[in-house]
């Protein structure tokens, strides 16, 4: 019994310690930001890594999610005779929710895990230590460019996901199920608000970008420098990012709708 309580205490203390380390780590990364201006090329290179290489999975998933939304939405809406609002349903679901959330989940699985593994292996092969010995701070040289690349890439990826999803919904709704194309778009335009819906989605995806990339680079940097340690860190990145995204999504949605 006492052992169980002590274990609980130990878990809490270790968790807090990790949290503290993560906080200090992020502070250090932020502090190195001014030096990043002359390292624009590095950020660019990382945008390629986390953004462009994630593009394919985002586009394909977005298309299919949009198509499924079209099918499912039509099936329900047609019962009320309001299949004209299919465009609205698809657009709102994607822009407000699915775009940012699914993109963040895919990002964590594709780019986040890769970032953690890369940084963890750099640590395991003494590349980070070597940099330190060359008087180069790895936080500004390795971590910060990756972090900012993730923060830049995420909203763009989410926007692409939503856009292609809406096209997918259009494909199914208008092409397959003969919803009127005019109604599809006009209903959407009439009811989707730029600030309330689209900007909220963008804000969400920026927050998710900070969280997912932050977790990924921290886990890599904090990994135990062995093959097992890197594997566990990669695993943690995906699990923690996904949980953080889903939890934060609820909180952000509640804040934005202002109903809590």
């Amino acid at each position, binding site marked *: 019994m006492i052992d169980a309580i002590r274990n609980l205490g130990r878990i809490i203390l270790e968790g807090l310690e990790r949290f503290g380390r993560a906080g200090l780590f992020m502070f250090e990364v932020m502090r190195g930001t001014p030096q990043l201006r002359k390292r624009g090329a590095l950020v*660019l290179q990382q*945008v390629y890594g986390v953004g462009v290489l994630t593009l394919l999975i985002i586009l394909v998933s977005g298309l299919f999610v949009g198509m499924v939304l079209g099918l499912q939405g039509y099936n329900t809406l047609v019962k009320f005779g309001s299949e004209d609002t299919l465009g609205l349903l698809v657009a709102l679901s994607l822009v407000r929710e699915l775009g940012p959330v699914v993109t963040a989940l895919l990002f964590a699985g594709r780019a986040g895990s890769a970032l953690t593994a890369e940084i963890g292996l750099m640590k395991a092969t003494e590349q980070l230590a070597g940099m330190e010995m060359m008087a180069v701070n790895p936080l500004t040289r390795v971590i910060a460019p990756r972090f900012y690349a993730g923060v830049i890439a995420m909203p763009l990826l989410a926007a692409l996901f939503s856009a292609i999803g809406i096209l997918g919904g259009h494909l199914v709704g208008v092409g397959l199920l003969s919803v009127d194309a005019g109604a599809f778009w006009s209903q959407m*335009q009439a009811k989707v608000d730029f600030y309330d819906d689209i900007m909220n989605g963008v804000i969400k995806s920026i927050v998710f970008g900070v969280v997912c990339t932050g977790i990924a680079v921290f886990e890599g940097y904090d990994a135990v420098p062995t093959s097992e340690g890197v594997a566990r860190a990669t695993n943690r990145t995906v699990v923690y990012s996904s949980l953080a995204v889903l939890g934060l999504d609820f909180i952000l949605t509640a804040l934005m709708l202002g109903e809590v």
Partner: protein
Amino acid sequence: MRRNVMELWVGLFAAAGLAALSMLAFKVGNLTTADVVNGYRVSAQFDNIGGLKVKAPVTLAGVRIGRVSSIAIDKGHYRAVVEMQLDGRYDNLPKDSSASILTSGLLGDQYIGLEPGGSEKNLESGDVIMTTASALVLEKLIGQVIFNNNQSGGDGNAKK
């Protein structure tokens, strides 16, 4: 060479992302119509606004010229005070224009329709629209129909 290819891809990626964002903004969302430039505020009082909501459109002859910016209660008269933000380009509305709350379609949302009057003076910021027609509340409408039917039916019976 490899670097150029990478830069090209990143450029394409950023351009595509921004294009998607602007598609969302202009094609999906209503950024083009949402902006009320150099707007001015007028208000109107209604007995009942039904299901009117903040941000509902304000139209003139069916064309959207503004949106509802706030809804409040006038404590003294127990009436609803609706403030609307109108587009500055349409600043020549007569002062005695009227506002009515209408419904788009049978189940659609409610909006405010403005009807121009005949006055020489124009509406200015802070003015109050005097002539208003409240929302049609379905239950009241049905109630009225039944009442009228009963009355006319009763009269008919009496005449017989």
